[in-house]
């Protein structure tokens, strides 16, 4: 937790501590920790002089600002129309099978979390997914297995 406080302090030093700096600060924490815990939100609220409920309410509005504990790698499979048409379900099944987790779950080794997300903007190369900030497109079950194997090796 001390590290987090330090990290938030540094972030706030960079971004500023006004209301309009809230999102960049939240994003910075998620970048590092993949999610926002109650402790980190309290610390952010303290440093930006905002009510905790307000910060929580703002964070939960945004799909990428997770308040649930997430794995090191967050996989977000696009479920919107074109990806759905082009085999998103196959992709999900492949991931579920390989990592032994369902949608919304985190693997026991805390390495992977699996989520669905709305349109990623790669409809011409559907299906697509994000692993943290990396985009993977034109997915096939084989391709997914290759990609995940690389992550597992990391």
């Amino acid at each position: 937790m001390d590290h987090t406080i330090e990290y938030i302090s540094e972030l706030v030093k960079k971004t500023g501590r006004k209301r309009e700096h809230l999102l960049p600060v939240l994003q910075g924490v998620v970048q590092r920790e993949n999610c926002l815990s109650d402790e980190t939100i309290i610390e952010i609220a303290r440093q930006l002089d905002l009510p905790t409920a307000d910060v929580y309410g703002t964070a939960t509005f945004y799909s990428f600002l997770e308040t649930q504990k997430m794995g090191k790698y967050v996989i977000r499979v696009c479920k919107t129309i074109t990806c759905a048409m082009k085999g998103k379900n196959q992709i999900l099944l492949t991931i579920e099978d390989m990592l032994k987790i369902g949608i919304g779950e985190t693997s026991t080794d805390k390495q992977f979390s699996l989520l669905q997300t709305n349109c990623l903007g790669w409809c011409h190369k559907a299906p697509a997914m994000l692993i943290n900030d990396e985009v993977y497109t034109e997915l096939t079950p084989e391709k997914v297995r290759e990609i995940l194997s690389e992550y597992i090796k990391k």
Partner: protein
Amino acid sequence: MAEHYNLKRADFIFRNENDWEKILSRTLEKDKQELINELISSELKGRGGAGFPTGLKWKLASEAVADQKYVICNADEGEPGTFKDREILTKVPFKVLTGMGICGYISGASQGYIYLRGEYKFLKADLEKAISEFEYYCKEINFDFNIKIFMGSGAYICGEETALMESMEGFRGEPRNKPPFPTNQGYMGKPTVINNVETLAHTFTIFKHGAKKFYDLGVQFSRGTKLFSVSGDTPKPGIYELELGMSLQDFVDEFGDGDTKAVQVGGASGFLVPRKRFGVTSIGFKGKLTGISLPTGGSMMLFNSTRSMFNVLDNYLEFFREESCGQCTPCRVGCQQLLLGIKAVKQGQKQAAYLDKLLKLTETMQYTAKCGLGQSVANSFSSIVENFREEMIY
């Protein structure tokens, strides 16, 4: 028949042009009023989907009196089936930055922002490089203008301009009541011009080649070219720059797979056009065109006969149910009702006539929702249910 022509490809946006510095410095020497007139005469309309005249928007902001104004580039491209803005920012960022700079000059804003959707975070580093190069040049020519990137975090509704500003100010991305409009009270309560990525890129074309060049393309009320994001059942998905005003039939002839059953024009918030109406539908902004003219942010999704329109609608409604900001009743509750409603009809728990009730509901949503999201759910819902009713029923 609508005034339209066969499909005409164009190449302005992605044309490799390395003269942005020249265009910027040359334009900044011109009289602001003259530039506004130039932009107005081009009849450029917003390329995000709503189609507000860009020249008028810049004019209103330039007339607003304030100590600080802002220019925002809306790169929160979230409409299902749209991916053109990402390509613009990847390939020709300087056209967008130049457009923003000129807008800043005209409107009197010295600070610009690019609101980049969280899903496009991988673009950020390159874009920042381009911005620093751009700012360096601005400094060189003594033009006081800076641009910052503001990252989104996964919320479709933030593409709505006032929701985007709320988000930038550190709040939940909930659309504001209008009026006031952004050109009077936008970001931080200051006059703000907010334009889609593509719109700004087009202004580059206009200030470089002149309004006439742009105006001469397209058809009446729908001037110029437009980027189309083509996806779905097509052998050639991708991004294409086409003149506005084409008939949907020509579009399908070019991009279809020979079995096209329907085309969704304008993404989930747009309209579904069935095969029988391809010939009478043209793509452009509403005007005095005969036949039906559909505005679009450029999303063109093709569906062939293997696709269930129920599944398509179900997918859209799930999208809206999740992406509604949730503040206003018609949109928050309406989207949930529509989704559960079509499922109930499909599963036989409700009579087919329930679809008519739902159609009425979308009408109310259109009249009463606070912003474009809730208002436009009716578009896809009614066009799908009315044209493919038999696919909705148990």
